[in-house]
């Protein structure tokens, strides 16, 4: 794009917020996240490439090489060491980040739990990809869903813009004095990570002012007295420590809206835990997270034009999970379809399971749909078909599938 033909740099953002923005430019989800990381300028980034996360670490390495960040970059030999090194760095008092996907997340799983157990506010973008076996590099949510009980806050992103903003939001959530928990920010592999969309970037100084400086409560390098991290706890203390982690998640739920509101005041965008899309009077609703929410919105708009009362509930904050809020939002909707891009083999799929828990005595019919594993496309026609079925209420109990040959 030549300068002459280019649109005004910030015309894509709401005019009253334009002053907070630097530019709008075409970026993939992966590059959008690397821009957020550049603006955050973490003290330490340790990362290992894995498809489809690779462009994040590549582009960030270039920022390091070009002196655009002051970060100490640690090019580790595995994801296990990536998480190990950021745990060391975060415990030392630094602001530390990494990024991964799929089996990379699975490899670091042991240390993912150590990070939350030590209450280290590490922020990690995760590009969703199927877990082996069979090996598959494409999108589904089996990787982050397998980590839903690992003590990390989880934010899911519909598009590159959200992935960018969530990464910035995550720093504040993680480092809040009452929370002190790690955060993973999910986006769909290839669909979001490699698809280029216009992304509006805040000014560097706006981001830096919003995130502030990390003030660790205890650390290896900044505390006056020596601190022991990762001690052995026997049955006499372990339970209480874990209870505190649960309490921290409760605090995350308590403080989330306030922190999100602060970011909204800069970006002009909102970050509700659950986004309602034409849901108020809906007779049939779908529930989804990540990029499928965008596709569903388009179908909702088309069907609404035809007078069909359909809507969407998009989940942004999956951990911690606000059961009472989701219950309030869904209570009056007769037919609800829950989309899961992963199984919980032999049990209810993860998102469906949460929605059932939130609606124990509801009159709503709640149906489960598993779709899109290993990058299987989700077409608008399939969403429409699913809505039609929901409107009729004629769906079998148990797990239904979309786009599966059987």
């Amino acid at each position, binding site marked *: 794009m030549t300068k002459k033909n280019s649109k005004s740099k910030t015309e894509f953002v709401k005019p009253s917020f334009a002053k907070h923005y630097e530019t709008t430019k075409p970026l993939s989800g992966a590059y959008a996240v690397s821009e957020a990381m550049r603006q955050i300028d973490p003290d330490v980034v340790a990362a290992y490439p894995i498809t489809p996360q690779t462009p994040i670490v590549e582009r960030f390495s270039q920022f390091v090489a070009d002196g655009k960040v002051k970060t*100490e970059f*640690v090019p580790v030999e*595995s994801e296990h060491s990536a998480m190990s*090194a950021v745990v*060391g*760095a975060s415990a030392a*008092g630094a602001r530390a980040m990494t990024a991964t996907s799929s089996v990379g997340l699975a490899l670091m799983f042991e240390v993912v739990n150590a990070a939350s157990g030590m209450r280290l506010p590490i922020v990690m973008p995760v590009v969703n990809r199927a877990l082996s076996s069979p090996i598959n590099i494409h999108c589904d949510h089996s990787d982050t869903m397998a980590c839903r009980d690992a003590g990390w806050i989880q934010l899911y992103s519909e598009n590159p813009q959200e992935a960018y903003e969530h990464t910035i939001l995550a720093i504040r959530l993680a480092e809040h004095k009452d929370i002190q928990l790690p955060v993973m920010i999910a986006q769909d592999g290839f669909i979001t990570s490699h698809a280029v969309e216009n992304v509006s970037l805040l000014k560097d100084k706006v981001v830096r002012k919003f995130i502030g400086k990390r003030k660790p409560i205890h650390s290896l390098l900044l505390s006056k007295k*020596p601190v022991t*991290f990762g001690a*052995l706890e026997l049955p006499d203390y372990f339970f209480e420590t874990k209870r505190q982690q649960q309490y921290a998640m409760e605090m995350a739920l308590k403080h989330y809206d306030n922190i999100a509101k602060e970011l909204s005041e800069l970006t002009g965008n909102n970050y509700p835990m659950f986004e309602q899309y034409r849901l108020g009077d809906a007779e049939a609703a779908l529930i989804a997270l990540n990029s499928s929410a965008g596709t569903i919105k388009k179908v909702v708009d088309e069907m609404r034009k035809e007078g069909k009362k359909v809507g969407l509930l998009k989940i942004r904050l999956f951990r911690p999970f606000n059961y009472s809020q989701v219950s309030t939002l869904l209570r009056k909707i007769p037919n609800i379809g829950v989309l899961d891009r992963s199984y919980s083999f032999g049990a209810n799929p993860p998102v469906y399971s949460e929605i059932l828990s939130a609606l124990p005595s509801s009159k709503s019919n709640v149906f489960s749909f598993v779709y899109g594993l290993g990058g299987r496309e989700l077409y608008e026609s399939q969403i429409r078909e699913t809505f039609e079925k929901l409107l009729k209420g004629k769906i079998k109990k148990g797990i239904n599938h979309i786009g599966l040959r059987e």
Partner: protein
Amino acid sequence: MNLKEYAVREKNFYSGHRSCAGCGMPIVARTVLSVASDYNVVVSNATGCMEVTTTIYPESSWGVPWIHNTFENAAATISGVESAYKALKRKGKIKKPYKFIAFGGDGGTYDIGLQSLSGALERGHDFLYVCYDNEGYMNTGGQRSSATPYGASTTTSPSGRVHKGKEQWKKDLARISAAHHIPYVAQASIANWADFIKKVKKGLETEGPSVLVVLSPCILLWHLKPDQVRDVSQLAIDTCFWPLYEIVDGKYILNYDPGKRKKPIEEFMKPQGRYKHLFKPKKNKEIIKRVQDKIDADWQTLKRQADFDKQNS
């Protein structure tokens, strides 16, 4: 530093830990931290006897900042701490100089943590890695590791009617470390404090990664009485089972040559219950000879290498 000076130094490693009487590991920790008390240090510790016996919440034996992350990642963890230090120093958030030490047993170093160590060595972080090598998985009760020597009986390489203890050679961690082209690698022993102290100091003063492998007898695995630990450590040196040497910038330096007083390996084996099956009910000459031949060959190789490097330095 002589031993009198050493005796009165701040150790930063305190009593009250739960290791067994006679264990070599606390001697390693205390010696390293005593030398390190000249500096500000941060310690990372792999899961293992050292970690579980010294930090039973709410107590800690460590008078320095200390972190245990998981089993196989002491080196990766300290590389993160060291990187944080560099970044915070560059940003003016920290003024004091620091040294970084990682401790791991042979399980956490030779085996499950080898990749993490290799990565950290290759990346060139400025830290000292100390492996206390007790030649088995002792935190789980005495299984074989790749550091368990040939012929030793453990719970997963037991002596029975068909097999007579471990049938593989001990991995050579010092040479594996040196193959990363790092500036300083050494083998040390708790039986020679002066040599050990000197090597800790060198490791800490060296810019870049250094690796110190210390033979650290375990009374449970080796079946020793607490008062035998030092003597058996000495026999390891005198039989050339555990030669004391350094590899400085790739050059081998022999620190101790018993010469004609080099003892047969039997003398090292005999006091140890893990080799009992090689002596009773009757002596297994074949296995003992196989071990002796290997030790002799390795010792000649080491001497030749050290002589060559001495002549060519």
